[in-house]
């Protein structure tokens, strides 16, 4: 019974820290509809800064202040240098935030190393009351966080700045008409939110150790709380953070610490499923606030037959040429790996192209496929065909479930719910040690089946098998286009609310698309297992899912794009001899640069460049012939840029 008191106390203290994090998230979201993924990493930064200063002899108070300022400054910089450019499109802002998260994580690792560190508590000792121990430090955290939050409420309610912030939140257009500088308010929200994260970080650091790669995990916690309270709803937050903090502490106290992530992701997914407006919102956000509206003029670029043929040929031949040209088996196995990546990219591209959802759950789906195949091979001794027979339906179900959650929520929540899904799957593979061997991973005791005289034991035959599957996936998914189901998905993509208004069950269509993508993903996952022979949870973690997204954005949606981009993406770091942390840094920078500079993706940019060049050349030759370059005969491949679609979606 008294243990319960202790858990409750610790839970309330933790909740006060989550409150600080969530207030920052919600402040920024309220004004910009943006969820800054790097927010959690600002917290990590604050922990390291505070620790360094305290170690150097600076008193706790000043170290904490410096950490808060550091977090505020980095928040300010990120708004001025990055997010400012995506204000008209929060979805792109989300992706930039992901990139920033990757960059800051790897930078933190470079500077402070990979160990988890804590901040020395400001106060030692405490008081016992019955069996419950009230550490002074925890009491201090609770009181300080409470005061800061209360101060923030007063600031919002009473001051001119607060009134301007609220006005900008309620109705930016009207606010700017009455003289509120909305742009400045956004900056204020960013700086204040980040500074709060800094303060939260220092406090969090005194409660438990934090490492360089904890940012993603912390943003998800903060987001779970913000969501529970109703995003943008500051007053719901206090209740939500207490609920969440206590819930989490109880899970860790009576269950196991490893179960906490299940709690976090579970909260996110369940809240989004059941009460997308948060627990305390009386009126859930109306559809019109978040739904994708009619997206105006979509850019369908059509290509001539020759270009399509060339693209198709390049798509088939390029990997083969490269595979045969690279001399070493090390490089050949990387080409094989890149085709395995490409299969996942095609699966993701399908969902993206049809439903407009840029899912960060591809790793999760692939993990379901690969692990279910691995588990039945290791524990039941069943081989490849059984693996397919079990993995595909299981992953289809997982994909359908994901699709179900996704179809229940809209706009900015989508990215997060897919992220939570893949984090959840990774956590399962880590925790279900009896089945998955946890961190140590599964080693496959089986090999690919013999078909005729082909044994698939050497790299070359495996490569051609995987390439064949990639081709089948790419062309196969395209075959759905002219079917009834394909058309329904086109309706969802082109104008979801219109499709709904003429009777389409939009949710079902999305579930179908995710299920189909799951099937492809599963086959790819099984092939991954059978060609790489070892799988560990990190093979399919969030970083992997983000890589797939980067490749998709890099390659754009076209037949050859994903394959070419996968090869560049997998081979380049190897040729540059980058270690994984440098790679992560590079991915982050790439992601940011693509969104800011190359919104059409790399491959479509090249194609556009080529088309422009060609039409210039033709125009100089035959003035009349130039007219066709805009929109030649139907039947060509569409090249749509993911970020373009995203842009249109939000507008």
């Amino acid at each position, binding site marked *: 019974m008294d243990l319960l008191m202790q858990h409750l106390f610790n839970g309330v203290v933790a909740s006060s820290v989550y409150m600080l994090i969530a207030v920052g998230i919600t402040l920024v979201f309220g004004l910009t509809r943006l969820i800054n993924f790097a927010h959690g990493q600002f917290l990590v930064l604050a922990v390291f800064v505070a620790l360094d200063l305290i170690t150097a002899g600076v008193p706790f108070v000043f170290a904490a202040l410096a950490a808060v300022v550091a977090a505020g400054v980095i928040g300010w910089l990120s708004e001025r240098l990055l997010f400012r450019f995506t204000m008209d499109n929060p979805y792109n802002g989300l992706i930039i935030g992901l990139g920033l998260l990757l960059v800051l994580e790897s930078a933190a690792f470079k500077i402070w190393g990979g160990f988890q560190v804590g901040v020395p508590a400001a106060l030692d000792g405490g008081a016992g009351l019955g069996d419950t121990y009230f550490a002074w430090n925890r009491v201090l955290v609770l009181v300080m966080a409470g005061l800061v939050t209360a101060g923030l409420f007063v600031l919002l309610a009473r001051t001119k700045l607060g009134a301007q912030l609220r006005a900008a939140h309620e109705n930016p257009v009207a606010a700017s008409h009455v003289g509120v500088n909305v742009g400045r308010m956004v900056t204020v929200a960013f700086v204040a939110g980040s500074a709060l994260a800094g303060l939260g970080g220092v406090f969090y650091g005194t409660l438990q150790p934090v490492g360089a790669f904890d940012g993603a995990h912390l943003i998800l916690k903060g987001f779970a709380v913000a969501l529970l309270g109703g995003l943008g709803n500051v007053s719901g937050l206090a209740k939500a953070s207490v609920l969440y903090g206590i819930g989490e502490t109880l899970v860790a106290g009576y269950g196991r610490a490893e179960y906490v992530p299940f709690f976090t992701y579970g909260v996110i997914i369940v809240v989004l499923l059941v009460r997308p407006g948060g627990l305390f919102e009386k009126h859930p956000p*109306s559809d*019109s606030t978040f739904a994708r*509206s*009619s*997206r*105006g*003029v*979509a*850019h*369908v670029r059509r290509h001539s037959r020759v270009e399509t043929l060339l693209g198709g040929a390049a798509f088939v031949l390029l990997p083969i040429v490269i595979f045969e040209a690279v001399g070493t088996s090390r490089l050949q196995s990387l080409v094989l790996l890149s085709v395995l990546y490409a299969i996942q990219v095609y699966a993701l591209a399908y969902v993206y192209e049809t439903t407009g959802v840029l899912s960060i759950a591809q790793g999760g789906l692939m993990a379901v496929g690969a692990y279910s195949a691995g588990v039945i091979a290791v524990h039941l001794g069943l081989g490849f065909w059984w693996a397919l027979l079990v993995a595909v339906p299981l992953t289809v179900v997982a994909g359908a479930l994901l699709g179900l959650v996704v179809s229940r929520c809209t706009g900015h929540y989508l990215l997060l719910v897919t992220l939570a899904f893949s984090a959840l799957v990774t956590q399962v593979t880590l925790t279900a040690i009896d089945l998955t061997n946890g961190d140590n991973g599964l080693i496959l005791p089986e090999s690919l089946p013999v078909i005729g005289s082909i044994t698939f034991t050497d790299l070359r035959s495996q490569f051609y098998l995987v390439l064949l599957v990639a081709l089948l996936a790419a062309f196969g998914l395209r075959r759905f286009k002219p079917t*009834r*189901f394909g*058309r*329904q998905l*086109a*309706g969802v*993509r*082109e*104008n979801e*609310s*219109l*499709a*709904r*208004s*003429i*009777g*389409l*069950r*939009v949710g079902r269509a999305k579930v179908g698309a995710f299920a189909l993508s799951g099937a492809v993903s599963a086959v790819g996952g099984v092939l991954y297992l059978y060609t790489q022979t070892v799988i560990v949870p990190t093979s399919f973690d969030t970083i992997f899912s983000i890589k797939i997204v980067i490749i998709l954005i890099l390659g754009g949606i076209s037949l050859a794009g994903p394959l070419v981009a996968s090869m560049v993406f997998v081979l380049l770091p190897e040729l540059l001899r980058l270690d994984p942390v440098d790679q992560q840094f590079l991915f982050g920078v790439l992601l940011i640069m693509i969104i800011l500079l190359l919104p059409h993706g790399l491959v479509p940019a090249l194609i556009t460049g080529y088309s422009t060049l060609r039409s210039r050349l033709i125009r100089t030759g035959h003035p009349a012939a130039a007219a066709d370059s805009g*929109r030649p005969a*139907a039947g060509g491949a569409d090249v749509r840029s993911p970020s373009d679609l995203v842009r249109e979606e939000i507008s």
Partner: protein
Amino acid sequence: MSEVLLRGAGVTVRFGALVACDSVDIHVAAGEILGIIGPNGSGKSTLLRALSSVHPPTRGGVFWRGQEVTGWKVDKLARHGLVMASQNQMVFSGVTVREALAIAHSCRPKGKRVDEALVGERLVALVGLDAVLDALASDLPLGYLRRLGIGIALAAQPDLLLLDEPAAGLNDFETRELKALLLTLRDLGVTVGIVDHDMTLMVSMCDRVVVLDAGKKLVEGPPSVVVKDPRVIEAYLGTSMGTALEEKS
């Protein structure tokens, strides 16, 4: 009297303190063209959205063929035969007209009874899109765009089609074509409820007219009677349409 397809009883829609629709009683009978008119901001669009479940009423009930359907999902209501085409989200824009209509047909549930006049070539001919089948929907001139919007809605085989200002921005010729189309639809058995500002169109086409003013139902009756009603003229007084009404009366 023919069957009542749709009935709104005491339909009230609030936006905060603003009462956009105030206890409106309204019905649409099978086979008629019902017009809803009223000055700007009188709650016509809000009423259509409430009736079609796009934005369900705060208070009051909506009944479809006698069954209460208040708060139903838009798509469910559409599958039961009530479709609204609003002016701002009319088409699937990134595809050709042909593809847009194919998409619209695919959205209809499999088992649904179809009217032969509202599928395939017949539908294309009905809404007059033969000439532009391979044009991108986003490239269409406004008149065609509206017809595509109506074509898409018709592909769902509605029993009642609600239209919000389908004639806005159309020239006289296009408006006459639109009128011909709507009259043909009525003859084909599709009931129409229409909101529009074009008085000439409304008076000449509608079988019955409901007038809204400041969210309340003001008058209801045959168009020729309604436009002479002093209350209606007063509601419109000072607006350009008021002048139009006075010319008629």
